């Protein structure tokens, strides 16, 4: 058993009732992560998406959290205040069940990094409506050695899952020999 330690957990709190569906969070996220920074807008590259169905009054911003190589069978439907939501409406998993959170060109997964260089994530800065707020919570939890994957590792892992070690190694060797 590891020891209990205090940690600061950063997160984005979502108040669904304050979302007006403007998708400013998507725009800001995609702009911030463009190279050079802010040079291009493209919500499909955003690591936060507003799952939206106006006619059902459904507006749910969800962030890309964990990568899962398999999609779940999750097609459960929840009824909240008379409105029907699919399970996916609240799920931030980067999974093959849906198109969300994969870069449209490379197909590689996109994960929320909370815009680590900024005082607040850009999506929060772009939400004066107050639907998204940044929170730093102090929590006590068991210490564990956590390996946080950076963007390349995340992409590599996805490639490994998809093509297997041997194929990736062969391709890597072939491409690196070409110079």
């Amino acid at each position, binding site marked *: 058993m590891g020891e209990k330690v205090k940690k600061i957990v950063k997160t984005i709190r979502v108040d669904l*009732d304050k979302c*007006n*569906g*403007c*998708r*400013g969070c998507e*725009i*800001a996220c995609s*702009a911030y992560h*463009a190279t*050079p*920074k*802010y*040079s*291009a*807008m*493209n*919500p*499909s*590259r955003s690591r936060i*998406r507003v*799952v939206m*169905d*106006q*006619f*059902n*009054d459904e*507006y749910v911003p969800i962030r890309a959290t964990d990568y899962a190589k398999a999609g779940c069978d999750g097609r459960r439907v929840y009824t909240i205040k*008379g409105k029907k939501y699919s399970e996916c409406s609240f799920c931030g998993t980067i999974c093959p069940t*849906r*198109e969300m959170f994969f870069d*449209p060109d490379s197909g590689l997964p996109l994960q929320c990094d909370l815009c680590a260089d900024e005082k607040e994530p850009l999506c929060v*800065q*772009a*939400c*004066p*409506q107050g639907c998204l707020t940044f929170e730093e919570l102090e929590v006590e939890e068991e210490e564990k050695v956590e390996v946080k994957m950076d963007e390349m590792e995340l992409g590599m892992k996805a490639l490994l899952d998809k093509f297997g070690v041997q194929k990736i190694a062969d391709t890597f060797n072939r491409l690196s020999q070409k110079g």
Partner: protein
Amino acid sequence: MRYAEAGYNLEVDLSTGNIERVETDPKLMETHLGGQGVNAKIIWDRVKPDTKPFSEDNLLILGAGLLHATPVVGCNRTSVNTINPMTGIFGHSCMGGHFGPELKYAGYDRIIIRGKAPKLVYLYVHNERVEIRDASHLAGKGPGETTSLIREELNEPFAQVACIGLAGENKVLTASLEHGYSSASRGPGPIMGDKKLKAIAVRGTKDINIAHPQELFELCLKMKKWINDSDGCGDWMAVDEDDSFHHNNFAWGNSRTRIKNYWSEELQDRWTRWKYDNMDRQAGCYNCPKGCINVISWPGTKRFGYKCYGKDTYHMAAFKELDYTYGMLGQCLDWGVDSYSTPQAIALGIELYDNGVLTDQDIPNFPTDPGDRVKFLLEKIVHREGIGDILANGSWWASRMIPGAESFEHNTVKKMEQLPIKLGKLNPAYYLMIATGEKMAITQIEGSFPQDPIRDPVKRKEFVDKWDAAPYQKFKDMFMNWEKRDQISIEDTCALTDWNEAMHYIDDSTGLCGFVSSFRGQFGGQVAYSFNNVPDIIHLATGMEIDKEGLWEICRRNRDLVRCINNRLGMRRVDDDPPKDHWAVRNPELEEKLLDAYYDFRGWTKDAIPTKAELQRVGLDYVADELIQLGILDPNEGTPAQEAAKAEEQKSGGC
């Protein structure tokens, strides 16, 4: 690299099924910006004057604004242009929501649709993949069902869908194009129906590039907060429940009855409860923090969204209260009808019946309660059944199709219903805007210069001191010297009309919303976008060098071009005519002077056609050449030599 623009148009011929992706001329951004400006240029070039609205050759163009899909806040209105079958002239139509930006992300600045499909179809656009797909299973369905069925069958939950309801399918002239809780009226609905195009679904995953990214993004982030916090932006009717203005001042029924002391505190309390007890949310459009759209779940109806005056028109046609309109709007959205024109056409029908022009033979089983009557006629109109087949053409046409009805129609300009405003004394600025505007709704023309003077000189000074939106000192001086509504010089009237109109031409071409720009400045003066910052914003987004004067020049060019399209379709001075009873006290002599002065100010002939010199000045030489060739424009009209000859003629008393 193209900045702010996608750089391609999507051309779709529904008759042949041909689909093309066509690179656009980057110069058009410099001459017309985008949106409606470029749409007008395409309509001038490609829709010949003998083209009937319901013809294969009429185009329907859905144009994204130049600044759509950039970080510019409150920029989301899509311009939808065609030849409007009700007016027979250029249809000015636009809608908020998410459509234009999504189209840009799919790699297109506009979709140009020609031809007619042999059966009901919808268009599916996902980047380069474009398909014309069968829509027979969507026939008769409303926007809610159509949108979700299309998203499901394409497995595209993020697709943006614009579609018509049953009214559009039946070519009801007051039908609108629906997109979420936004809609584009004045033409696109019936044209989509005629082209058998039920819907357009767009999904885009491409980048839109920005010329000066860091500066623009940081500016927009600040503006977003400012717009969110500002009382000067957005629809104040979303938060202010005092709607005495429309109910005490606008005319009820067939635009005849004013009820001056209608509004009361007790009524306001009741209506406020109806709204907030049944409201799910106040929603916004793409990249705008405001919540102008009130989303209501009213018992027994489908959920609907409305903004502004849209909640008033049905109960004012039926002499009922807000609960009546709330009971109607879910169905109206589902059928896809415009809530401005439709209730007026219905109220005309009721008045014709009450006056014996229409009888029980014309309208069998006509109910007695005015609320039931409005519902009854709406259903007939949407299905084009019986009398509904006539009223479906709007008040102007209906009153000419029903024997003895013409004198009952009294609230149209250029064949289209106007807001039911009936006032006392002539208001010079509004005379000019209503007479010469060709956007068919005063809200699309007025908006920057306040409607009324501020009596108290101290408050007036305060207003002017913080009036950042005024483009030149002359407008501040004008306002400082303005004491009484109807007492304003002809010269000032022309100048303020020009400013009001120019701001709308900015919005229509960039995609900005009037509630943060052209329409809103008149109320309080504190608005997000004006001639003082839009040129910089365009520069940051596109890289194009542009200043205030340059921007004004583009607005003037676009204004002239729309006028020339309409001149070519037959519009002249005689059509620049407000409803006869808009003001009880008219001043024909002043009105003629105002028109003369305005045409002169614009560089138009006395018959309301831009002169050759004016068209050359704004770089529309090719337009002048064609108007001259068609015999519409006299090449010498408005030249100094001709003016001198006229003066000489008047001096000598003529022949």
